[in-house]
């Protein structure tokens, strides 16, 4: 019997095994997203509880890992969500696609990161929507399509955010860490 089936039966050992397999990875993801290790640990803890309680909602067993990432990403977004008047103007998101220009290539970002400072601290300084796609794409090595599925956005939006995120990341690394928020 596989792990997901055992989780469905409510087996404690199966849950422990899932936490052993994915706990560290999910915690590091949450740290990249919320910038606070205590809050990140709380989010991951809640995510495992949710996953265990709602395991029946997982349709494809082999997608357990990406399902867990979605739960953690949603948890992080929930914690980071702040009210803003700009939420009213829904058309704002569509305009993002007009600026689809990849100004920095990943190589630049890595090389600058090596020379100056840690990349994760630079990622922390990105606005949340860029931090989210950079984390999913680079840290989780998700494809554009998979990233779009996790954050429930269009692929073009993900591409735009990645391009903009990389540019901002490069600027942050070059400047040695000024806040972009």
């Amino acid at each position, binding site marked *: 019997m596989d792990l997901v089936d055992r989780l469905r039966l409510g087996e404690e050992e199966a849950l422990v095994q899932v936490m052993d397999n994915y706990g560290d990875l999910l915690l*590091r993801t949450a740290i990249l997203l919320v910038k606070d290790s205590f809050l990140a640990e709380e989010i991951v803890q809640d995510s495992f509880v949710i996953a265990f309680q709602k395991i029946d909602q997982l349709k494809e067993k082999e997608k357990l890992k990406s399902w867990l990432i979605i739960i953690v990403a949603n948890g992080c977004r929930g914690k980071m969500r702040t009210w803003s008047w700009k939420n009213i103007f829904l058309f704002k998101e569509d305009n993002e696609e007009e600026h689809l220009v990849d100004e920095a290539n990943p*190589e630049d970002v890595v090389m600058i990161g090596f020379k100056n400072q840690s990349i994760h601290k630079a990622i922390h300084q990105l606005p949340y929507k860029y931090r989210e796609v950079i984390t999913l794409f680079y840290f989780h090595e998700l494809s554009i399509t998979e990233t779009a599925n996790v954050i429930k956005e269009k692929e073009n939006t993900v591409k735009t955010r990645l391009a903009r995120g990389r540019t901002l990341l490069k600027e942050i690394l070059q400047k040695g860490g000024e806040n972009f928020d």
Partner: protein
Amino acid sequence: MIDNKQQKELKRQLDSELSHFSFTKQGGVLSKTHPKTWSEKVNNWWNKEITIPLLPVGAITVLLLLTAGMILFSNDGGQQVELIERGGNIYWSDMYERKVGANES
């Protein structure tokens, strides 16, 4: 545009930077999913998430408030309360009648 090799390099660097963070709250998860002690069970029950459907509950609340309002107003018995002037002062008619009635008896 997006170089797979560089994606892997960035991943490797992030892994190395974050390697000292490990998930330590397995016990916290298990106490919620598989409560063993009595206090864990009570705590679990107390913190249980419930979902309240906003629309029906909101509609029922509005209905109750309207009903309560109607009952309150209907208890007036149709008596018209108005401002009256007596001896140069302004009174509510019902209050004035109560006071005068009490003084007369």
